[in-house]
């Protein structure tokens, strides 16, 4: 323990009460920062996981057709072309999904590909009718690119595999139509009436999905839509989700189909999450700002009160640097205690909140408050408070160091 540290500690213990305000603001600032970050990223992470688990990391749809202009400006498949969107035309759908799947699987980061046929339909139950979207899937393929298998809340996926004309129905639409596993419903297409049986009910937690999607087996869907070949899109899952953009760009470039990464597809929601996270971080940082101001105030007060001691120390050979170090140490000690307690508090509240039963409905559905544990929330909280409080401590410490012992003694003694 250095001598300056020891002196700082003693000055501080004599002024405990004054430092309390600063200390409590540091604790609150750090603690709340951690909790709010854990919660906002918790919801964001839940959203991303759901997106990846339902729509996949990359969706491949729409054939790219070069127009005369883009051919003139760089040639087909020339990298440059992808970015120049106005020079391109898209043709909806995928004609030969099997061939395209082979091309997509050649990418190293790809862990699964599933061809999906989709159309908007009207669903009738004995209770009422409802517009929805029917998705034709090959179950084995689709389980590899989605979390559908773990999203079943009633019935069983095994029934869907074996049952004739089985269907997987979203929680919200099933409730609206009052459907339970085993019930039948109809999809009317022109004059044909097709009958299906509810094999299982799934719940992704995302309202937009659970309220519209009905999964059918690919063959049933082909019969319903009268489309013996082709697919609406390919759903692709990735090993490293953060490389989706790069992979999608490369796929668009080399396969001749437009590939969209999840970050671009969900840009607006992800933007909302980010804005929310930044906004709460700024709001909570007000506490840290107050902690900084309180520290400035308290240190300035201690400097005024300890001018005599500063003069004594200087007369004994303590340098200007020693004096400013003594005051910076005081801030550092309070900071250390504050950030430590703040981190502990943040962790405890985060845990408590994550355990608290709290039904959430809206864009998602969850029965608990969602949190994400990350050491970065703690590191960021500590960095923000250390920066704020140390910057606030610089001025009073410098002032203490600048005091001339002669002036102090004359002012006090005479």
């Amino acid at each position, binding site marked *: 323990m250095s*001598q300056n540290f020891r002196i700082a500690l*003693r*000055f501080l*213990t*004599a002024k405990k009460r004054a430092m309390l305000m600063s200390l409590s603001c540091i604790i609150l600032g750090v603690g709340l920062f951690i909790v709010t970050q854990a919660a906002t990223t918790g919801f964001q992470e839940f959203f991303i996981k759901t997106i990846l688990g339902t729509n996949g990391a990359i969706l491949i749809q729409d054939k790219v057709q070069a127009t005369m202009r883009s051919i003139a400006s760089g040639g087909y498949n020339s990298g440059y072309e992808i970015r120049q969107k106005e020079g391109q035309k898209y043709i909806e759908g995928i004609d030969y999904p099997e061939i395209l799947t082979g091309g997509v699987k050649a990418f190293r980061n790809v862990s699964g590909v599933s061809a999906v046929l989709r159309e908007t339909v009207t669903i009738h139950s004995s209770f009422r009718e409802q517009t929805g979207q029917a998705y034709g899937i090959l179950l084995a393929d689709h389980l590899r690119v989605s979390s559908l298998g773990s999203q079943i809340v009633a019935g069983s996926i095994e029934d869907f595999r074996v049952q004739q004309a089985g269907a997987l129905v979203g929680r919200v639409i099933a409730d609206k139509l009052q459907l339970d596993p085993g019930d039948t419903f109809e999809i009317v297409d022109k004059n044909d009436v097709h009958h299906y049986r509810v094999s299982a009910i799934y719940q992704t937690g995302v309202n937009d999905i659970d309220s519209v999607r009905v999964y059918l087996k690919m063959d049933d869907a082909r019969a319903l839509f009268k489309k013996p070949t082709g697919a609406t899109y390919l759903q692709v899952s990735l090993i490293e989700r953060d490389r989706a953009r790069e992979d999608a760009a490369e796929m668009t470039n080399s396969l001749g189909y437009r590939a969209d990464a999840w970050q671009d597809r969900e840009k607006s929601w992800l933007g909302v999450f980010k804005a929310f996270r930044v906004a709460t971080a700024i709001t909570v940082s007000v506490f840290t700002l107050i902690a900084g101001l309180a520290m400035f105030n308290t240190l300035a007060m201690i400097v005024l009160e300890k001018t*005599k*001691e500063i*003069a*004594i*120390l*200087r*007369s*004994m*050979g*303590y*340098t*200007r640097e*020693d004096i400013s170090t003594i005051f910076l140490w005081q801030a550092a000690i309070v900071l250390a205690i504050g950030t430590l307690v703040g981190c502990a508090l943040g962790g405890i509240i985060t845990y408590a909140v994550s355990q608290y039963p709290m039904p959430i409905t809206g864009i998602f559905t969850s029965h608990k408050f969602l949190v994400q544990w990350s050491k970065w929330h703690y590191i960021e909280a500590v960095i923000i408070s250390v920066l704020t409080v140390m910057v606030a401590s610089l001025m009073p410490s410098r002032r203490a160091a600048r005091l*001339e*012992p*002669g*002036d102090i*003694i*004359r002012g*006090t*003694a*005479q």
Partner: protein
Amino acid sequence: MADQPKIAMRCEGLQRYLGQDEGRVHVLKGVTFEAHAGHVYAIVGPSGCGKSTLLYLLGLLDQPDAGKIWINGQLMSNSLDAVRTAARGEHIGFVFQFHFLMLEFTCIENVMMPMKKLGRLTPLQMVERATRLLDSVGLGDKVHRLGTHLSGGEQQRVAVARAMANQPTIILADEPTGNLDVKNASLVFDLLTSLAKDNGQAVVLVTHNPDIAHRCDFTRPMRDGVFV
């Protein structure tokens, strides 16, 4: 020349103005003075004649407006703050007129404070030396008492012990016996003088006590900012 004692401190033509604008006062009007190792000097004079002001200059706590100061042969006036600070720690022991202790520290911590800054002794040696010094000012039984729990006279004796902590070249004491009863005043004075003789230190003290002044090796009467 061989038995001529070493010059611990010398000043020449020291001048100091204090205050600003109309309130500006010519406090020191050219003081020249020499303190030899092993000798005790008394500066006497009426209140307000500039004794403390002179002592602050000699203690390198303040800067003269004119004149020069040498400590141990080295020119110190108007040198860099870092140089003067180091010299304060190593060569000068200062006893303030108004017993300046660090009140939230114990007696021994106060005495060890200059030693820790200089850092020449081991922690154990520091404790031993500080204990011995406190013992010699009659506070051997109050070593671990906080400064706030000491009487004015006791605080002053701790301040004397602290001034001698680093065995400085020169001890500057502004009324070191001002708050003490006759017995303790005599004790502190004897301590200062005997240590100075033993270690070859110079002592310059300001006093209003004629008895004390009389027992010093030299007396320098001062009036209106000059020695007379």
